[in-house]
Each structure stands twice: as structure tokens, then as C-alpha cells.
């Protein structure tokens, strides 16, 4: 398949503006500036683009929520916090093709009529921040940023803003608080950022990959997009060739694993995959014959999330894997809501005592119940993100209770073995040289 989002990856000096221009860069921008903002928003709606940051919210619809009668300035915030475990695709875009990101930001800012845009990049991505900063300076010099862009009268400033190590700052209102110079404590919604966002002004927060999509829809048309929608997949774990892969949205997970990533190495067998970043329910090997798109994965009881596929072979202890994730959520909970702060802590402790041979049979129900008591009862979705890997997605038929379809029940036998035998069922150590 022709690469669209990752076309520049591997090209020498791909970060340089002249190289980007030589490969057809900044051609969508003049076309966009000749359209009206409403036409651009309609284009995003027609193409059906859904957010790439995790929640999959329709982008055109989000943009149309901006109030028409609010005289305050509008802001575009590019969410480059990329801290969901298993996710590393935005880094590729920013480090290898920063001008694609900038062109996407200019078009998106024009569509929502924002004159200020911040790229909130996770603090650890120092290299990415430097590359973006340099690329932004090049774009100012060539007249793609600043006042009167390409003679259109449109004005835009972009600034790279580095975070400082906190997963919660990827949550859109945590990000806003952090950008304002505070702790990244999520806000209660409503009001939504589109109405009351950063500095009290109407704000749109989108993921990096989402914000480059308008370039390609403008260049190739809405119909092309609908027929060929490209998506980035982050493939990690027990794979022969892990990495970021561009493929048509809806590519089968087994095709990604076997054809793109060269399958599972060392003759081992596939055991499980977390398909959408650590916050979504796990799939058993036999459930992995599934299309990697929003609807098919939802039907399979999981989610596309941030498209971070964590692949595990039969050397993986599922109790240990869940414990690992629970440590993450417990560490990253911002502590504002009791169910999340206490619940994630208890999930970590209970899972840990099972793994270390001190578990009780009742602990399994206790974990499911604890997860259920977090989900849906918190300010932001981090609580849900911690609960879903344990106990699955909410079930409408059970009044929104979690359906139980994830680690604890799908690998129950392994958890029970741990409790009864006080040791791991998996005995093959993973070799590291």
C-alpha cells in the first residue's frame, strides 16, 4: 500500500522544510485557505474522521461545537502527550515529518479560526520538541506561520510546550490545566473545552495524528479518504519486527502481527493482545482475528483506543502483566477522586499479592468489584482506563456494570493457579541478552 502518513519516514533530511516541499508538502495549505472554515469542518464531517487520541470522537463534530457567538480568542491544542502505554506513533510523525504536523495544525487552526496553537508534547520527547521547534522557525521564515499567511490575511502562532512527566496531562482537561501552569488535575465536564477551555477561552484539543488528516483529505478528496483511510498502528511486545506501521484502517490484527511484523519470534505461540493501548480490554489469541477499526473492536469487546497493540506470547504471565498495568494506573492517578485514587491502589495491591503467592480465592471477585466501583464514578476517564483491563467494558444490559470480559475472567485459570499453587503457571523465562 502507498504510504500517506509516513511517506517521509526514511527519506534523508525529512525534517527539513525544503525536503518536505520537494515531496509535495504545503500543497494542501493554499487550497485550505481558499475554502471557508465551515467548508473545512463539513469536509471533516463528511470524511468521518474519528479522533486518534483514544476516545475516537468524530473530529468534524467536535469542531462544530465551538460557540459561534463567543468573542474570546480560540485555541487549538495539539495533544502530543503520548503517554498511553503501548503508544508511540505521534513520535514518528513529529520526529520524522514535523512539517506534516505543522501543515496539519495550520489547516486545522484555520478551520476552527484559532490564531494560537500549542503543541503539548510529553516532556521526555526532548528530541521531538527540538525538531518541531526548528521546523516551526523554518515555517515562520517561509511565511507559513505568523501574520498574513500566504497572503490570505490569516494569522497563526504555534508554540511547542513541553510537559514534565505525568500521564494524566494527556487527558484533555488535565492538559489544559497543565498548560495554564498548574498541576494536571482534570476538570469536571461540562463545561467542555469547546466552550470553556484554556485561559477560559473556546478550545479544541486533538491528537497529533488526527490533526494531520485534513491535509490528505484536501489533497485526495473525501471519497478517496473513505475508501483508503490510513491509520498508524503501534506494534510492540513479542514480535519479530515491532514498530509503527501504516495500514488501511480495519486491517486484520493477525495480518498486522504476521505479515507486517513477521509474527511471533523464537517459535513461540501468541497468547494475548491488548489492541488499543493499555487502557482497553485484552483479547485472547483466538479473539485476534479481528479488524482493527473502531466498530469491529468495540464489537469484539475491546477498543481501538490509541492503536497501541501490545502483543504477548506464551512466556507471559497474565497475573504479572495485569499487576504491571495496575502499578501504572496507581502511580498515574492524579488523586482527585476517591474511587480512582483508592481503587487503583487496591487493584495494584491485590494483584500483587496474587502474583507473589499471597492471594486468596475471594481476591478475584474483589478485583472485579473494585474495578466496577471505579468505572463511571470519576471526574475523568483514567478511572475507567484502570478498570477496563481488569473487568471489561460497561454493559448496557447490566445497567452499565462492567461485563467482566478482560484479564481476570479471560485468564481466570491462570489467576486461580497462582492462588492455589503460590507460583506462576508460566515457567518459561523470557531471555534477554
Amino acid at each position, binding site marked *: 500500500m502507498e504510504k500517506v502518513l509516513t511517506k517521509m519516514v526514511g527519506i534523508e533530511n525529512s525534517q527539513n522544510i525544503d525536503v518536505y516541499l520537494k515531496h509535495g508538502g504545503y500543497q494542501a495549505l493554499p487550497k485550505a485557505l481558499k475554502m471557508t472554515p465551515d467548508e473545512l469542518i463539513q469536509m471533516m464531517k463528511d470524511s468521518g474522521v474519528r479522533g486518534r487520541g483514544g476516545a475516537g470522537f468524530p473530529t468534524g463534530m467536535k469542531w462544530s461545537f465551538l460557540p459561534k457567538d463567543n468573542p474570546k480568542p480560540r485555541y487549538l491544542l495539539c495533544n502530543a502527550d503520548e503517554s498511553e502505554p503501548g503508544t508511540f506513533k505521534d513520535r514518528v510523525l513529529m520526529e520524522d515529518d514535523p512539517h506534516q504536523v505543522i501543515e496539519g495544525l495550520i489547516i486545522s487552526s484555520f478551520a476552527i479560526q484559532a490564531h494560537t496553537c500549542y503543541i503539548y508534547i510529553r516532556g521526555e520527547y526532548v528530541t521531538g520538541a527540538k525538531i518541531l521547534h526548528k521546523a516551526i522557525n523554518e515555517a515562520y521564515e517561509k511565511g507559513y506561520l505568523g501574520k498574513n499567511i500566504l497572503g490570505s490575511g490569516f494569522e497563526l502562532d504555534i508554540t511547542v510546550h513541553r*510537559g514534565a512527566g505525568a500521564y494524566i496531562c494527556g487527558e484533555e482537561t488535565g492538559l489544559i490545566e497543565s498548560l495554564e501552569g498548574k498541576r494536571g488535575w482534570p476538570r469536571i465536564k461540562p463545561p467542555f473545552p469547546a466552550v470553556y477551555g484554556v485561559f477560559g477561552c473556546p478550545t479544541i484539543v486533538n491528537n497529533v495524528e488526527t490533526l494531520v488528516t485534513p491535509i490528505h483529505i484536501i489533497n485526495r478528496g473525501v471519497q478517496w479518504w473513505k475508501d483508503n483511510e490510513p491509520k498508524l498502528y503501534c506494534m510492540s511486545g513479542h514480535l519479530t519486527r515491532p514498530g509503527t506501521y501504516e495500514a488501511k484502517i480495519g486491517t486484520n490484527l493477525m495480518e498486522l502481527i504476521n505479515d507486517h511484523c513477521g509474527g511471533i519470534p523464537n517459535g513461540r505461540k501468541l497468547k494475548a493482545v491488548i489492541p488499543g493501548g493499555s487502557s482497553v480490554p485484552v483479547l485472547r489469541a483466538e479473539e485476534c482475528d479481528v479488524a482493527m477499526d473502531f466498530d469491529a473492536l468495540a464489537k469484539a469487546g475491546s477498543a481501538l483506543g490509541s492503536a497501541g497493540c501490545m502483543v504477548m506470547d506464551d512466556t507471559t504471565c497474565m497475573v504479572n502483566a495485569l499487576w504491571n498495568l495496575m502499578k501504572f494506573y496507581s502511580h498515574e492517578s492524579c488523586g482527585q477522586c476517591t474511587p480512582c485514587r483508592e481503587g487503583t491502589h487496591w487493584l495494584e495491591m491485590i494483584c500483587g499479592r496474587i502474583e507473589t503467592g499471597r492471594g486468596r480465592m475471594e481476591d478475584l471477585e474483589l478485583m472485579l468489584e473494585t474495578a466496577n466501583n471505579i468505572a463511571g464514578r470519576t471526574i475523568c476517564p483514567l478511572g475507567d482506563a484502570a478498570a477496563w483491563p481488569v473487568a471489561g467494558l460497561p454493559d448496557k444490559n447490566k445497567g452499565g456494570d462492567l461485563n467482566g470480559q478482560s484479564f481476570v475472567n479471560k485468564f481466570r485459570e491462570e489467576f486461580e493457579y497462582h492462588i492455589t499453587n503460590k507460583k506462576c503457571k508460566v515457567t518459561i523465562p523470557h531471555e534477554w541478552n
Partner: protein
Amino acid sequence: MALEFSPEKKKEVEWTLTRYPNKQAAMLPVLHIAQYQFGCISPEVMELVAKTLDLPVSRVQDVVTFYTMFHEKPVGKFHIQVCHTLSCAIRGGSQVVDYLENKCGVKCNDGISKDGKFSITKVECLGSCGTAPMMQVNDDYFENLTKERIDQLVNKWKSE
């Protein structure tokens, strides 16, 4: 004596302040600049940042204690952060920590090695899972780690 930004850092701070509608929003960038100059965010550094942003010191402290990247105490000349989240863990991430502890002569989360060179911590996913196991040392990522590669790197750092 009250601390001051170096002339070069002062310029960076001034430019940074022009990019935001108010001073408080420059908090994280100014803290980063300060940490590059002073090595950590001590109480004196907090005072300098507070003065720069016209904010009470308590506001600065509130922020510094929230984010893992700001150190309130000095770290080693080479501050090693090993990812221990799932995709790294299942490719040897925890063995990387043990191996580094032996090589560098300092335990994880246990201050700085005697020669002042190394400090080691475990951190959550650094967005480099496709090249696991990995670590960040100061500003740089080191990916697809093997014992041999760690030997090379640590030996080089010991001689620097």
C-alpha cells in the same frame, strides 16, 4: 544569595514569556530552563522561578511536586531512567535494571553512585515500546538494549 538565571537562560526565559497570554502559563517551560541550569529544583530555584513569574513560591512548589521530571534533589551526571511498563517488561526491562545497578554501582531509587556519575530510576512507558527494552539517559533515548550495548555505554560514560 538569591539565584539568578545566566544571561543565556535569561534570554530564553524572556522569549518564553512572549509566547503565553499570562506569566503562570510559562511555569513548565521556565522550570525546565531552570533545571537545565541548576541541575535540580531546590527551594532557592523555586524562589527564583516564583519571582520570575510573579507568583507565590507555594504555587511553584505545588507544580514541582506533581511532575516526575522535576527533581528536588540533585541526580547523577548520567540520570538513567529505565522503562518498566508492560511492552518493555516482557522484553527484559526488569533485567535491564538489575544489570545497570551492577554496572553503575548504585541501586535503583537510591541516590547517586559514589563517583557522582549515575542515578537510576524506573519510569513508566516512554513511548518507545516498539524498540523495547529501552532507557532514557538525561535527554536521550537508548533503545533495543542488550547487555553488550549497556556495557559499551556505561564504560564510555565512566570515562567521561
